[in-house]
């Protein structure tokens, strides 16, 4: 009941904001509204009992997504100059498809139906066996890191590949060819150092954000959290530092070679756990053989691969941010 009331509010807001994003011509407005969109989404995830997902969406949506979009807007254009022609075909296509999907949803089980098919298949097994086989309180972490470890490995490599793509596209910076002085340009576009209050408060909060990231990393077995959220949080701390003190100092704090090494090292750590478990007589990513006690082996494996995930995600986010911030306008 409560869930339905909250969902009604949040989802209606979601649709209204989405329509507004679609209609606006100012891309800056669209980015701001998509910030609201992701906040509503995170609140909605929390209402729907998905604490881990809400934490991820919170960190990504509030901390990183807006910054990346604004960085891209600064390098491209602020206004959407799409001509208003030819909108009938897309409108008809999408509304027809939407009608079909809505028609199909009448067959779907209602929200929270315990007899729905999703709740009958493997989920009860995960919930039942996690305390016995893996013994970590957070079932999401157990499924993520152990039961579906292959899947997560794949995701880590997708993130890794995306990072390589961004580096390949934005990595090399050619010298500027216009006549605005480099120093003047840097001063205006690079940092907030002459704003006293943001500088003091921002720099003061960076250690707390990184500390909280580490807490989320190592508390992920017991509460909402894990490598993905922790990596994004640490990266958000570094991004905050780079915004306040300027990209140059940000790159002194976390050099680009270091963040790219972090990306590779994380993926390597994850894979090497799998190889180690193969060498010790198990299957790939079967952590039970890593220690004498299978449950301890699982704990060890989860700890190490979560660390790998955290390193990769933090490295990827920092590398992407640096790639955007270093790219002057030309």
């Amino acid at each position: 009941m409560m869930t339905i009331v909250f969902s009604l509010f949040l989802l209606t807001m979601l649709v209204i904001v989405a329509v507004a994003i679609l209609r606006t011509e100012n891309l800056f407005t669209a980015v701001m509204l998509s910030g609201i969109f992701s906040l509503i989404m995170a609140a909605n995830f929390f209402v729907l009992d998905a604490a881990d997902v809400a934490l991820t969406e919170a960190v990504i949506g509030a901390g990183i997504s807006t910054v990346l979009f604004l960085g891209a807007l600064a390098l491209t254009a602020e206004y959407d100059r799409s001509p208003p022609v030819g909108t009938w075909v897309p409108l008809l296509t999408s509304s027809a498809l939407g009608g079909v999907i809505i028609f199909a949803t009448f067959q779907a089980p209602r929200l929270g139906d315990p007899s729905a098919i999703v709740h009958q298949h493997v989920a009860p097994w995960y919930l039942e066996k996690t305390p016995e086989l893996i013994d970590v309180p957070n079932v999401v972490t157990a499924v993520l890191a152990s039961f579906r470890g292959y899947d997560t490995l794949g995701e880590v490599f997708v993130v890794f590949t995306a990072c390589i793509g961004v580096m390949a596209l934005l990595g090399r910076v050619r010298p500027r060819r216009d006549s605005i002085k480099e120093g003047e340009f840097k001063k205006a576009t690079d940092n907030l150092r002459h704003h006293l209050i943001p500088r003091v408060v921002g720099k003061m909060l960076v250690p707390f954000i990184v500390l909280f990231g580490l807490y989320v990393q190592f508390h992920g077995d017991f509460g909402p959290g894990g490598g993905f959220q922790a990596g994004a949080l640490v990266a958000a701390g570094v991004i905050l530092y780079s915004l306040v003190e300027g990209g140059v100092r940000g790159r002194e704090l976390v050099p680009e070679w270091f963040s790219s090494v972090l990306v590779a090292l994380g993926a390597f750590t994850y894979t090497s756990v799998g190889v180690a478990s193969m060498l010790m007589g198990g299957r790939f990513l079967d952590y039970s053989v890593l220690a004498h006690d299978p449950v301890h082996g699982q704990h060890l494996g989860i700890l190490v691969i979560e660390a790998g995930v955290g390193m990769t995600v933090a490295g990827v986010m920092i590398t992407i941010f640096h790639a955007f911030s270093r790219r002057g306008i030309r």
Partner: protein
Amino acid sequence: MHLLLDILSAMLLLSGAFFVFVGGFGVMRMPEFYTRMHAASLTDTGGAALILFGLMLQGGFTLIPLKLAAIFLFLFLTSPTASYALANAALLSGVKPACRNETGKAFPGEQPAKPKPKRKSASKAVKARKSAPVKPPAGKPAKRPAKKPTKKTARKKS
């Protein structure tokens, strides 16, 4: 004792909710940007503090009040900083604070911000499009500027 705590925290929570709501109302109804920001930033700290203290009383002797205190501390630091940064960004791009002139009629600042005339602006279309997406209430007589959004809410909620 338990009942007393409950009543106290209920009072704190409800007054916090009231403050938060008033802040939201102020953000919707105030005539121009800086006054709206005033409404938002005051209640962001005040209402949030009341609600978080109300919850703290319910936490008991665990880690929970500590976490709430941390949330309060960080909100207390970040919210005014964000307000400062926002006001600074607005001033930088030329949004003027509104002042009532002697006749007490006009709010000049409620016009949407125009780029400064002396800037060698490259994009001419920008000026025209500045407030294109949603028609601002600026064209209306300055008396009840927030009328239009109010109507809009009523329509959306129904």
